[in-house]
């Protein structure tokens, strides 16, 4: 080859081609997504993260949690994620618009965490990352049970783009669902720990819930798990994160934050183990990981099967429920 100019142009050209093709065009396509909302603009998803959650994401990244845990649910045809109950629909770009850094992950030495917050016991689940921003106190996002049933009631969003979410998440639809439910062919995946304990499915992460522990996936449970993973699951190969916790003498009363530890992990009499602020942020971040809200452009699992009873009661425009 002779002459530098063609060489230089070729080197620059191939790079520019790749840069435009793989970063600029995707950015133009999905780089400016907005949260979705219903027609009244009330049921907004996703919501911006609170300060604690944002800080928690940084703690998560700084300690390399993302090297073992992914935060993405693949579609049914692409893997067993949904069968493993890691979510009831695939993850979509819109789920992540407020995340920074985005911690999709490339390895599963531990479970997928995309919906770990949604698996928390009902009363513990934070209604939304920002708390007060939730429009209706009885809003669908507040309770996982309601979300699940609402999702069961909604027809496939692919068919009716706009009014579905509004209909499915209106309080009326939720209220009408539980009593009238005749047990559809495939009930929405149960997320309460009680149900998981009652009927341990083989894919449940830890079928045997150890006695004396806080309810599975509650904030208190996460703290115990981070502090001493093998007190919960003997086979776990997760490192413990004791450096995120503080052992201190009980001054007058035991702190409400103190970890409920048993056995050899328990602190000596008169001492308690409390989470540092970073640990609290980390758990807040995990509790906020929740993609259970339906998205208009993504089909949820179980949506077609459970369509009939509740959906007919919902004020959705005709046509869709007749599946």
């Amino acid at each position, binding site marked *: 080859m002779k002459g530098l100019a063609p060489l230089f142009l070729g080197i620059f050209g191939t790079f520019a081609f790749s840069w435009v093709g793989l970063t600029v065009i995707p*950015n133009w396509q999905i780089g400016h997504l907005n949260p979705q909302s219903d027609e009244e603009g009330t049921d907004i998803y996703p919501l911006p993260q609170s300060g604690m959650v944002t800080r928690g994401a940084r703690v998560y990244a700084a300690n390399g949690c993302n090297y073992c845990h992914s935060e993405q649910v693949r579609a049914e045809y692409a893997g067993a994620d949904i069968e493993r109950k890691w979510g009831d629909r695939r993850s979509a770009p819109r789920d992540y618009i407020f995340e920074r850094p985005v911690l999709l992950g490339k390895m599963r030495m531990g479970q997928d965490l995309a919906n770990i917050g949604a698996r928390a016991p009902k009363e513990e689940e934070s209604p939304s990352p920002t708390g007060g921003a939730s429009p209706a106190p009885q809003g669908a996002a507040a309770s996982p049970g309601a979300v699940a049933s609402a999702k069961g009631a909604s027809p496939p969003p692919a068919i009716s783009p706009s009014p579905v979410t509004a209909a499915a998440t209106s309080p009326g639809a939720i209220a009408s669902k539980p009593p009238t439910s005749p047990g559809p062919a495939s009930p929405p995946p149960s997320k309460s720990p009680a149900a998981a304990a009652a009927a341990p499915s083989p894919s449940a992460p830890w079928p045997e819930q150890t006695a004396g522990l806080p309810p599975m996936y509650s904030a208190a449970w996460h703290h115990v798990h981070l502090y001493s993973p093998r007190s919960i699951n003997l086979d776990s190969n997760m490192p413990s994160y004791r450096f995120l916790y503080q052992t201190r003498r009980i001054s007058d009363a035991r702190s409400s934050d103190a970890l409920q530890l048993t056995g050899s992990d328990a602190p000596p009499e008169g001492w308690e183990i409390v989470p540092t602020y970073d640990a609290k942020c980390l758990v807040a971040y995990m509790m906020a990981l929740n993609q259970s809200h339906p998205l208009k452009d993504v089909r949820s699992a179980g949506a077609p099967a459970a369509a009939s009873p509740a959906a007919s009661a919902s004020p959705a425009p005709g046509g869709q429920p007749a599946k």
Partner: protein
Amino acid sequence: MNATGIPLKEPAVSAAAGDTEQFERALIDASTRVPVLIFYTSAVAWLILGTLLAGFVSFKLHTPDLLSDISFLTWGRVRPVHMNVMVYGWASMAGMGTAIWLMARLCRTVLRYPLLLVAGAGFWNLGVFLGVCGILLGDSTGYQWLEFPSYAAIILFVAYTLVASWAVLMFRFRRGEQIYITQWYLLGAFLWFPWLYAAGQLMLFVVPVQGVLQAAVGWWYANNLLFLWFGAIGLGTAYYMIPKVIGRPVYSYHLATIGFWSYALFSSWTGMQRLVDGPFPAWMVTASIAATILTLIPVATVGLNHHMTMQGYFPLMRYSPTLRFTVFGAMSYTVFSLVGVLISLRSVARYVNFTQASIAYSHLGLYAFFTMVIFGAMYYIVPRLIGREWRYGSLIKLHFWASAYGIGLMTLMLLAGGFMQGASMENPSLAFSESVESVMPYLRGRSLSGILLMVSHFIFAYHFGLMLFGLGRKSTVPTFLNPVEAEGAEVAH
């Protein structure tokens, strides 16, 4: 050892040209001596640190309680430190040192103001050091291969600008119109890296893109770093070392041209296949899978070219350390690409996407291919800078076999383990913990391979140290792996 009739000397061209050319080459080598040795010494130091960290990380993966109570020794911090030390400390510095030396030789010009490059090496070391400390203290950004916090990234970029502009400027003073194949690759590498690094930093930290695109930019960066930076330096070096050592021109220039441009075009479009089935438009992933398959074109042309050049000269690998390492690396490039194609296919990726198999892929590229080529280059270059020959042929042999078996075992363990892990993970009737259990024996095997690599790197560092302190052999004959026999001499004729 019989020194007469040894095939492993300068190619016939230079022998015919006579003493002036020999003298000129010695002058050029001398001018690169200080900066290249500084790059190499730092690289070897980082290599040792990275190897120790690798062993630590590997053991912690199956022994999670090992020193886990100390925040800066937690697995999730040591692992990115290991990766970044290897990528920016060892591989980049050794690659830059080699590239500078090759540039000077091929442009047939003495290196002007070598002290500027020394400053560049110093700043680069500072950047890596600060980045490592940052990650250990909990400042990691969380993006693969871009974990260094911004204060370290800026220093790295400044250092790089210093080094690269100097290397590229050598073209201004070059003699002769012909630009050799190696120079295409090196010029490419030196220009691609800063664009890539700047684009990655800008789109992730300065004007961050939204949501999942951060992951796309991150993988675009990581994959292109592997191909356009390390891959280009590695291939360029192989294109120099193989013909040089056997004293025979490259088989085909046309093949080399096709190989280079198809490499630049297709390999730069890979990366998104790592995000397969993630929350992305499907066309992005599909485009990268297609590009990954198309990289078989450069693989085939480069592989064929090297093979035809080597045709009839393979027995020389018995003697020349450089040739043995370089050919191993060049062959690994083919294996690396084939594995890349295999695990990017959707039907396979479904199983191996979230498993240890992707770690095997990175190690194949960065170690079996790039690092082995660079080892080979260092065995060639260092004696020419110091004026002494390597002291022990046996140590080089040990180094080679420990490295070759180590990386071979590691690749097998991680690939097999990854497939086992993926098969269990994709079977929802098995508990998730079973998939972790199923990969554990392979991870222990991987730790074993880590010990082999550790042995090999310590041997190399010791040998390199002997050279640095002037304890090499004083001889005009290079150090061979085996005593040269009569038949070895015949091969060359």
